[in-house]
């Protein structure tokens, strides 16, 4: 009788230890999830934004150089469109979320003036993943890449008109 009471006293700490063990792993899972899910989301969102930044910068640089070397305006704009499509394709981005604008210097004259410059600006709207649409507005990050390329003093795209 006495020995059995003694053994039950000795056994008492074991169930509590087991209980604590269970709650510790539960805690690990909850805390781990609470911390891990935002980190994974951060990784995914940052990856999308970085892809857009790299695509915008690369497309703008290529497009500006190609336009500056093109024979005429139409060819230049075609090449700008091609380089944007290529860059977006490389990074798996959608053309509908991006836009490209050409700014020419000196202002007020047709693009491609001798000794002028062309600035290609590529804007990409990165829609954040898994974000619900609230009142028709998507959570998105605008990303811009702009590169200026000089047009040669000896450019002859307007020579026929002169």
């Amino acid at each position: 009788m006495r020995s059995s009471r003694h053994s039950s006293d000795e056994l008492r700490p074991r169930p509590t230890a087991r209980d604590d063990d269970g709650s510790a792993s539960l805690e690990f899972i909850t805390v781990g999830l609470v911390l891990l899910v935002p980190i994974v989301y951060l990784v995914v969102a940052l990856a999308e934004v970085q892809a857009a930044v790299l695509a915008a910068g690369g497309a703008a640089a290529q497009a500006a150089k190609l336009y500056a070397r093109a024979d005429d305006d139409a060819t230049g704009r075609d090449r700008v469109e091609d380089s944007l499509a290529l860059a977006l394709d490389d990074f798996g981005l959608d053309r509908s979320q991006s836009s490209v604008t050409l700014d020419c210097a000196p202002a007020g004259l047709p693009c491609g003036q001798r000794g002028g410059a062309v600035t290609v600006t590529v804007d990409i709207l990165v829609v954040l993943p898994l974000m619900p649409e609230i009142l028709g507005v998507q959570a998105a990050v605008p990303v811009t890449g702009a590169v200026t390329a000089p047009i040669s003093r000896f450019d002859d795209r307007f020579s026929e008109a002169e």
Partner: protein
Amino acid sequence: MPGRRRHLDVGEEDGSTMLLTIGFAVVALAVVLVGSAATSLYVEHKRLLDLADRLAATAAESFSIDDVTIQPDGTFRPVLDDDSVRSSARDDLITGGASALTGVEIVAARTPDGRSAEVSLASDWRPPMLTLFVPQGLRIEATASARSVFW
């Protein structure tokens, strides 16, 4: 006495699990932030290189028509000098603006062989997010060279 020790053990285990999880989260966050800082450094360097490219391309045409010589084989060859390359790069940097870059300066603008223009730029890069895991900033440099070709 054995019961007390066991109780202590349980307490230690409870604390270390939490600490491990938080430690893991901090390490993961550090990796993410350092990764994004590395991309930012790369992008900024690329921007500086694009700017240097542009300045070099303009400077490569900074010769005057009088300086163009006709080679024996019938091709034209312009002759550049350091002064015109330097002033062209400086003017272009001021008028063109350094848009998103901060503290851009011309390290060197010269012509190594009289035909091509070489422009070196330097700028300061700052990490976009927490500067806890990466240095306060770095100095980045980019060099580009360009040459005018006639045919």
